């Protein structure tokens, strides 16, 4: 595989670091001046935990009464609630593909029909002859999957699988409404306005947020990993010298450490758009959209273009083979986190030196996932800043451009204050 074909996901930015736990800031806000402290202590937009039982069990509840006693209306794709008789459309892919089942028996690479390789000559423009009035209607699948006949208002949707990457296997419909998304973005930016770029604050109109379906590959995998390195256990700690020449020394036993772990991973989402998969934080803010993962993909329904009415969509442009290195990378990271508990006796830490991965089986399903996206183009730097809201859980993350001189001035003022205290102490003790 040529290097240029592999999407860049190892930028110089920090996504290579394991992200901090929610709410972890690295500094105690109580020690900071009031305007900064107030911002830091404001509440974050509330997100539904995808590990919540109501989402994890994958129950498709009746949207009207939340009952789960749901049956198929014979001969149709309509679902009917046995409790309130409410009817609606949508088959979950969980049952359709057996997604989430049989992970332990996965072998080889299984690719769902919508995740197959993209044919380079497949057209993205599709023309339909309107059955209502005979007019011709064109849909550009780069960004939309439905269109309305401008003469008779008949609606068309791409429902058959075209091998251009635009039609996925499944779609996860929006649950978060626009007014909710706007409120979350407003709350998120409200916590970050003191040092925000003046132009950003002046032009801030969260009502311009747009619903976008972004393409992902949802991967189940079975793998085994071997990790080897050295660990140290402290046997003695002592000091030598006296007064200011006192130095602490440590004695330690050195061990060769080998670990092996077999594991399965359920519903790992990978960006299948080359542009979105580039998480180089020095040149873009795609890591923001990456952060609002995961989604409750267990509730995804079979593809139906009707879900995309009045929404934008981005076409998938990466095939399974190009995403394999990213899957391997994430599986290795998962393996490393899984073995951490088994090396806790090494109180001086472990230096992993070698790691190996064997992917025993993987199953790939392409899916459109719902994201509310607000963007701001910072003209001087040419950076596009995103604020994204997970269309299912409401998890909100964003990049707010900074008024550099203001932040620098605040940092220098704080530094000068600390320095003057240091000089005062030195003057008193010398």
């Amino acid at each position, binding site marked *: 595989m040529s290097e240029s074909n592999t999407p860049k996901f190892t930028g110089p930015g920090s996504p290579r670091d394991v992200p901090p736990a929610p709410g972890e800031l690295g500094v105690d806000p109580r020690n900071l001046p009031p305007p900064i402290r107030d911002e830091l202590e404001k509440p974050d937009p509330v997100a539904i935990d995808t590990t919540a039982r109501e989402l994890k069990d994958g129950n498709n509840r009746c949207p009207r009464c939340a009952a789960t006693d749901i049956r198929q209306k014979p001969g149709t794709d309509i679902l009917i609630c046995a409790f309130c008789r409410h009817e609606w459309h949508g088959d979950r892919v969980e049952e359709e593909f057996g997604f989430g089942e049989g992970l332990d028996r996965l072998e080889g690479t299984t690719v769902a029909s919508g995740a197959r390789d993209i044919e380079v000559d497949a057209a993205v423009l599709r023309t339909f002859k309107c059955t209502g009035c005979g007019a011709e209607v064109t849909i550009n699948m780069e960004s939309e999957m439905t269109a309305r006949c401008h003469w008779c208002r008949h609606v068309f949707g791409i429902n058959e699988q075209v091998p251009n990457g635009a039609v996925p296997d499944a779609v996860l419909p929006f649950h978060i409404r626009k007014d909710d998304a706007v409120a979350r973005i407003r709350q998120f930016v409200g916590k970050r306005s003191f040092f925000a770029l003046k132009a950003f604050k002046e032009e801030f109109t969260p009502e311009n947020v747009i619903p976008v379906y972004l393409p992902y590959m949802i991967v189940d995998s079975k793998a085994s990993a071997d990790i080897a390195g050295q660990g140290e256990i402290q046997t003695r700690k002592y000091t030598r010298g006296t007064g200011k020449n006192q130095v602490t020394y*440590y004695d330690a036993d050195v061990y060769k450490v080998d670990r092996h772990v077999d*594991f399965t991973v359920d519903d790992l989402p990978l960006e299948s758009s080359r542009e979105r998969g580039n998480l180089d934080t020095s040149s873009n803010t795609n890591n923001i959209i990456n952060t609002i993962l995961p989604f409750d993909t267990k509730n995804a329904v079979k593809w139906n273009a009707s879900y995309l009415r009045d929404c934008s969509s981005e076409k998938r442009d990466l095939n399974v083979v190009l995403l394999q290195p990213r899957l391997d990378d994430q599986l290795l990271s*998962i393996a490393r986190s899984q073995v*951490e508990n088994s090396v806790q006796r090494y109180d001086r830490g472990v*230096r992993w030196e070698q790691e190996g991965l064997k992917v025993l089986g993987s199953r790939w399903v392409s899916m459109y996932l719902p994201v509310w996206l607000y963007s701001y183009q910072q003209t001087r730097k040419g950076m596009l800043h995103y604020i994204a809201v997970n269309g299912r859980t409401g998890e909100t993350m964003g990049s707010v451009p900074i008024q550099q001189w203001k*932040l620098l001035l605040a940092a220098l003022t704080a*530094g000068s204050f600390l320095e003057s205290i240091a000089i005062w102490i030195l003057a008193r003790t010398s």
Partner: protein
Amino acid sequence: MSDNGGLALLLLGPGGSAGLYWVLYRYYRNTDKSHAFERETTVDAKPVTGADSKVGTNNGTRESSIRGNNVNEYRHRVARMGNESG
């Protein structure tokens, strides 16, 4: 006060400046955030197996932890033993 202590005190100002800038920059720009797939994905792992054997000692070192400690840095790749993808 020792020379080292004095020097450390004098570094308080520049260190505080850089530290506050770094914390607030990340708070606004969130460049350190990404999908925490290690803890947010459903992983079903069989019990970890392995071997530990003592190979020597590291006595009289001034370092408080092993050199190159990467036990928490799951995403920093090390040398590959070999890769077989199914």
